[in-house]
Each structure stands twice: as C-alpha cells, then as structure tokens.
C-alpha cells in the first residue's frame, strides 16, 4: 500500500503551476485589482515582494486566465541580451522573424508598422535580473503605449524603499506581495492538501501547529513548502523504518516540525 504521506509530500513540491493556485482573500483582492489595472491605460505595473511571496505564481495565473481573451505573453526566465529580447518579442507578438542583430530603433519600427487590435501585455518575471540599460528601454517602450508591461521585482529589505521611490516618481502602478498571516497560512496549507484529496493530513494542521510553522517561516510560501515537504518526508522515513509509533495520527508534535526545520535550514543547529 502506498503511504498517505507520499501524496501529501508531493503537494509541497516547490513548483509554479496555475492549476495549483489557491484563492486567498488578500491575494484575490490584489489579483482583481491587477486584472483591472491591465485594462486601464496605465503604462506599466510593478509587482514586488520578497522571494517566495508568490510573484511567479501570480503572473502564471494571470497569464493562464487572460490568454484566451487577450494578447498576453509570459517570460519566466530573463532574457539578458537586448537583441535577443527584441527578437523574441518581435516573433511572439508581431510574428516577425528576424535573423541577425535587432536594435531598439529597428524594433520600434516593427512595433509601429504592425497595427494590433488591442495592446499586447508582456509579463516579465524576475526583472531584477535584467540589466539597467534594458530596463530603461522597457520603460521607453511602455511610454509609447504600444506594449503594456507587468514586471515582477524581487527586492530585499534595503532595496524596498528605493524600489518604491524609484517607481512612484513615474506613473507606474506598484503592487506589493507579502508573506501570509497566520490565518492565511492555515487556509493555504489546508486548501493545498484538500485539493490533492489529502483530507486526513489536512486535519492534523491545528491552530497550534500552524502557529509554530508561521513562527519558523514568517508566512513565506516557499519556506512553508520546503518545511512541509520535509515534514512529510520525515513521516515517510519513520514509516520505512517501521516506527509507526512515531507517526502522529491527530496532531503533529512540535518536535517533528523542529526536526524538519533543522533539516531545511530554517533552524540553525
């Protein structure tokens, strides 16, 4: 018989897939406002937050939802080379293949020569990895209002402030994604498990357990995924060593959460 913990463990593999998206109140509000913003004649939308707050998930979901009705393109990994970047956009949006180098002026010419029915939306993940020069060109491009950009930016604490100041002075809309609260984290964990039909394991996440997890991960989704993946791995390991007495049935002892945290490096021991 396959262990029930195996399914639960796989629920917390750190991947970004739009079908795994979980509706959380705060995130849903932001999501709605972002969807509205895209319809507005705003030039650019900046989504920023610490790693693991769900930025990539957000973009993926947005792309998935809007692609049937809108010209929308998602670039998950950054394209460093400027010419490469223009060529890709030319090909994807304007169906223009270009061999050899393509520079900014040439690209603008292509943009202006093609008349599209609606303004295409380009989603760029991990914009902090693009060069300053290319970011400036992207800004110029959005100023022409021929392409709308939604970009995500991972900012560390110190950079947060600069990011805000820098982007506020321009007419860009900025949206910040944050770590989850305790209540949200509980919903996140339980919904995720229930989506995969792991009802039994969903039930063992009591208030106290979630409190402990939140204390360790500060509500960061990625850290929570890692922690819970390891926690179920721990149960599986006990199971394989036939130590069934060690496996909880109705609640999770703090010890196991701490052990998983040590294993994932959330606790330094």
């Amino acid at each position, binding site marked *: 018989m396959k262990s029930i913990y195996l399914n639960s463990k796989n629920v917390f593999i750190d991947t970004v897939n739009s079908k795994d998206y979980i509706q959380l109140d705060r995130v849903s509000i932001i999501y709605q406002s972002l969807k509205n913003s895209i319809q507005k004649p705003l030039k650019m939308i900046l989504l920023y937050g610490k*790693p693991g707050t769900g930025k990539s998930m957000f973009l993926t979901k947005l792309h998935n939802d809007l692609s049937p009705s809108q010209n929308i393109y998602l670039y998950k*990994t*950054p394209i*460093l*080379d400027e*010419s*490469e970047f223009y060529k890709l956009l030319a090909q994807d949006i304007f169906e223009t293949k270009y061999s050899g180098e393509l520079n900014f002026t040439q690209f603008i010419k292509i943009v202006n020569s093609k008349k599209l029915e609606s303004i295409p939306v380009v989603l760029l993940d*991990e914009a902090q*990895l*693009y*060069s300053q020069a290319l970011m400036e060109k992207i800004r110029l491009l959005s100023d022409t209002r021929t392409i709308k950009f939604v970009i995500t930016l991972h900012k*560390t604490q*110190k*950079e947060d*402030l*600069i990011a805000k*100041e820098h982007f506020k002075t321009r007419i860009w809309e900025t949206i910040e994604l944050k770590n989850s609260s305790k209540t949200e984290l509980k919903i996140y964990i339980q919904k995720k498990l229930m989506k995969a039909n792991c009802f039994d394991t969903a039930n063992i996440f009591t208030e106290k357990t979630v409190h402990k997890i939140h204390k360790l991960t500060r509500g960061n989704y990625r850290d929570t995924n890692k922690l819970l993946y*390891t926690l179920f*791995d*721990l149960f*599986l*390991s*006990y199971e*394989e*060593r036939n130590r069934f007495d060690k496996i909880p049935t109705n609640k999770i002892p703090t*010890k196991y959460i*701490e*052990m998983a945290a*040590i*294993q994932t490096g959330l*606790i330094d*021991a």
Partner: protein
Amino acid sequence: MLNIPDLEKRWLHYKIKSFLPYIITLIFTFLIITIYSFFDTSNSKKIIKIKETKNTPAVTKEKKKIIIQKSLQKKPLQKTINSSEKHTLKLSPSMSFIKTIQRDKAIEKRPVKYKKTKLKPIQKVEIELKPIHKKQVPTITIMRQNTSKDIQNILHRFKEDKNPALSLFLAKNYYELGDYKKASNYALITNQLNKKIEDSWLIFAKSLVKMGKKEKAIQLLQEYISKSHSTNAAILLDNIKSGEFQ
C-alpha cells in the same frame, strides 16, 4: 529518505542549546539569591541603621521638589495675565519682569532646583534626534545591496538552471563584495553560456585588474573590442591603461 538518527541527534542538540540560556540565568539568580540572603542575615542590623539615617533627608528633598514644581506652574499663568494687562494699560512698568528676575535669582541661589529645571530640555533634545536618524536611512542605501542570503539563493538556483542571468548576477555581486576570484569565475561561466553579454567581459576584465593581472585584462579587452566595437569596453580599456582604474 532522511537520516533520522542524525536528525534526532541534531534536534536534541538544538533543544539543549535553546534551553541553556534559561538554565544559566536560573542558576545565576539562584546563586545571587543565596549569596544575598547569606549577607542579609549577617548584616541586617547595620543596613537598617543606615537606612534610617538616610531616610530623613530624602523626605525633605522631595518636599522641596514639590515646592519648585508649584512655583513653576504658577509662572506661565502670571505671564499671560501680565501680557493682557499691557494691552489695556499702555505704559505700566512691567512688574512681572522684576518678579521673574527675582524669582530667577532665587532659583539660582538654590542649586538643587536649578538642576531640576534643566533636566527637561535635555529630554527634548533626545526626542528630536530620532527623526534625524530616520531621514538618514534613504540617503545611505543608494546602491543595490544584496545580502549573502540572496547570493545563496541565486547560487542554488544556478545549480538547477544554467541561466546566464543568474551567473552574471553572481559575478556582479561577488565583484561588489571584493571576491574577485569568484567574480571572474562567474563572469567566465556567463561568457561561456553567452558570448554576447557585454557585462561579463567587463567584469572579467575588471576582476583581472583587481587580481593584479593588468596585462591579461588589456589583452582580453582589445580582443573583445576588435570583435564587438563596444564603447563601454573601450572606455574601460582606456581607464585601465591610464591607471585610472586600479
């Protein structure tokens, strides 16, 4: 499969470590209490005597404090009344001024009071300092500052995804941290992944100079410029040759 015995051992270690401060403080307070109670029983009589003699002046001082506070509270009231008087009786001699001088003199005569009145403005200065600290924060953080956690994160991701954007990020960060060996290493890796990324050439050359391999850097840049006609590389080459960049 996790290494359960090892993990359990580490957990035990962690538990002991996290309880250690509590145990130490507990032992410490216990020790202090026992020592204190030992002295307390032997010297209790003396302590009481000292306390008795010390108690009386403390009380009188407190009384004085109250008197000062009362006189200080009256002061502003009188001032406001006088100022309104001035408006009605135009040229009356300002008696309040004389009064305040007299009072000030009286205060000066009693040094204890003087000190007390001075304490308040000092506290105000401390409060005013805080906003200055706050204002300084944005001016300090002008440049991008990535923590070592960011680097660890990108390192980890680069292992899984050989994206030149990631290796270039590492090269730049190591360069900024002054780890020129790692910077040049990651610049080279970036370059192997994509020859066209100019920054990888520039960082590689700059790292070489920093490691004392100026000639090699010049040679490399010349080679790159001949292929790419990059102005940024030309500027860097000039700066290296002139010694402006060291």
